């Protein structure tokens, strides 16, 4: 009965849904954004370092040094995570072009071009004589004028999470134009004797011209502010992703896919990661200027409160296995514990197994969802800081939670509490499963 039902679910629901994430555009967004994660993780650490003074004794020279140089320490953050869309767009264009078997580099450059053409740089003139005259004798005004840059200036916020969705769209359009010109033969072709790299750059000229004409027309001549239009469409989606029902749904789906042995986090992430990055970047930029942190649940919230030890809060399973009596569970528990400490749980998922195992399905769904509720209330009551940084997902839970919350030791404490809670939720089910294993082992012994 259970077997039939799971086969039905797998064939009709989980596998088709997983195949959907193989769709070329979704994959391009996923791969393009995943390629920026190293930047975001390293930049996050600069953010964490810059704000260490908040959690160190004030009297230390080191604390003073950090506090005095905060602006300098944050510079790498400003030039990477803060303008992450600039990087992501290139990756998305590259991946999409590759998936059409086009030149990846040309695809990335075209995507970047289209995206930058949606932004109008401001032209800031130098101070006129009249202004300078006014400023003489006014020290405050003089300093201000000296600090204002002149020439063309790009609003950096448009290059960050605020521009994420327009960036994705620009990359799609640019690469589709590229694909169209390649397919229709509407391009400048070179004779065969011309080296491939030179031929490619000529081939990319037609799509480049189309992209420039199209995007420049929309931005400059029609004066359409695509950034504010797209943002007003996407804003409700972003805030909806930051509610408890969404969090529970995402957590549920993640476990659901893994139950069929499909990489849940990568499937759910295909859709959710752009939203998570927007939530995270809003948080980190508020943190960087000392404002209240706006959002509850960017990706680190899942990583350090729900997916401790891996999807399904399986650190609880790894710990519960220490109490098992069957030979199989004991052996597995020993080998799977260390990877679980670093949030790698495939050994448990396929080893225990959790896949298609009705006994362990319940805690595999329940543990992360109960953790989600606890973490949600702890965070909204202000018992722990909100997530501001992306720590490497392979860090042990408490350390990751400490860093991601911007050096809040209470984050680490909550993580430890949730590990204990998950263990308690897994424990009775693991014992039940252990008895099944033990009975099987007895049978085998008698058969031999």
């Amino acid at each position, binding site marked *: 009965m259970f077997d039939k039902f799971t086969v039905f679910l797998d064939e009709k629901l989980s*596998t088709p849904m*997983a*195949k959907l*994430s*193989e769709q070329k555009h979704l994959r391009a967004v996923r*791969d393009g954004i*995943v390629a920026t994660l190293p930047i975001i993780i390293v930049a996050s650490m600069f953010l964490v370092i810059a704000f260490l003074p908040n959690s160190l004794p004030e009297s230390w020279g080191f604390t003073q040094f950090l506090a005095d140089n905060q602006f300098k320490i944050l510079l790498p953050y400003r030039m990477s995570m803060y303008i992450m869309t600039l990087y992501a767009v290139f990756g998305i264009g590259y991946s999409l072009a590759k998936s059409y078997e086009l030149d990846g580099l040309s695809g990335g450059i075209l995507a970047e071009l289209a995206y930058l053409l949606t932004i109008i740089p401001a032209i800031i003139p130098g101070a006129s004589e009249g202004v300078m005259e006014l400023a003489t004798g006014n020290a405050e005004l003089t300093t201000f004028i000296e600090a204002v840059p002149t020439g063309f200036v790009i609003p950096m916020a448009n290059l960050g999470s605020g521009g994420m969705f327009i960036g994705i769209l620009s990359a799609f359009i640019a690469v589709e134009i590229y694909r169209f010109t390649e397919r229709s033969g509407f391009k400048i072709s070179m004779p065969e004797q011309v080296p491939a790299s030179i031929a490619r750059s000529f081939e990319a000229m037609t799509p480049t011209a189309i992209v420039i004409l199209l995007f420049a027309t929309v931005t400059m001549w029609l004066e359409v502010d695509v950034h504010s239009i797209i943002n007003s469409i996407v804003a409700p989606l972003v805030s909806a992703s930051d509610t408890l029902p969404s969090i529970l749904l995402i957590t549920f789906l993640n476990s659901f896919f*893994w139950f069929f*042995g*499909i*990489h849940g986090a*990568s*499937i759910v992430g295909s859709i959710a990661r752009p939203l998570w990055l927007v939530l995270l970047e809003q948080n980190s930029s508020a943190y960087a200027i000392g404002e209240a942190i706006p959002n509850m649940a960017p990706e680190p919230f899942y990583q350090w409160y729900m997916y401790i030890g891996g999807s399904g809060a399986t650190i609880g399973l790894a710990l519960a296995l220490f109490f098992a009596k069957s030979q199989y569970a004991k*052996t*597995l528990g020993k*080998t*799977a514990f260390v*990877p679980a400490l670093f949030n*790698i749980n*495939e*050994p448990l*998922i*396929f*080893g225990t*197994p959790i*896949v298609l195992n009705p006994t362990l399905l319940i805690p595999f769904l329940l543990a992360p969802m109960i953790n989600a509720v606890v973490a949600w209330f702890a965070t909204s009551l202000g018992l722990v800081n909100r997530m501001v940084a992306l720590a490497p997902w*392979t860090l042990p839970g408490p350390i990751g939670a400490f860093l991601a919350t911007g050096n809040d030791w209470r984050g680490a404490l909550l993580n430890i509490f949730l590990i204990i809670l998950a263990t308690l939720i897994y424990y009775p089910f693991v014992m039940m499963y252990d008895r099944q294993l033990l009975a099987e082992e007895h049978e085998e012994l008698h058969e031999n």
Partner: protein
Amino acid sequence: MRVILVCSGGMSSAIAAKSLKEAAQADGIDMEVHESSSVKFQEMVKEDYALALVAPQIRHHFDRLKKDADSAGVPILQIKPRGYSPIGGKFLLAQIKKEAGQVLK
């Protein structure tokens, strides 16, 4: 023989790879197992492998990975869940023998 094992990020495959290597060794087979992420697979599979193995959790990528493997002329297998764990090496080896025995010779 050189085998390439592909999983999502190239992390968990290391654990399964180690177990497979040990099982092969115990069986007297000289096997080198390399890990790959699903993104890097297209490039890596060209590097003279006798066999490609796909982790169970990315089976929805199988068709795409098979296309890459086919064009590199590398036979490809979908690992059964039981073979993908730190103690699953011998199951995986048995599956390879059964479904792609020719590459072991």
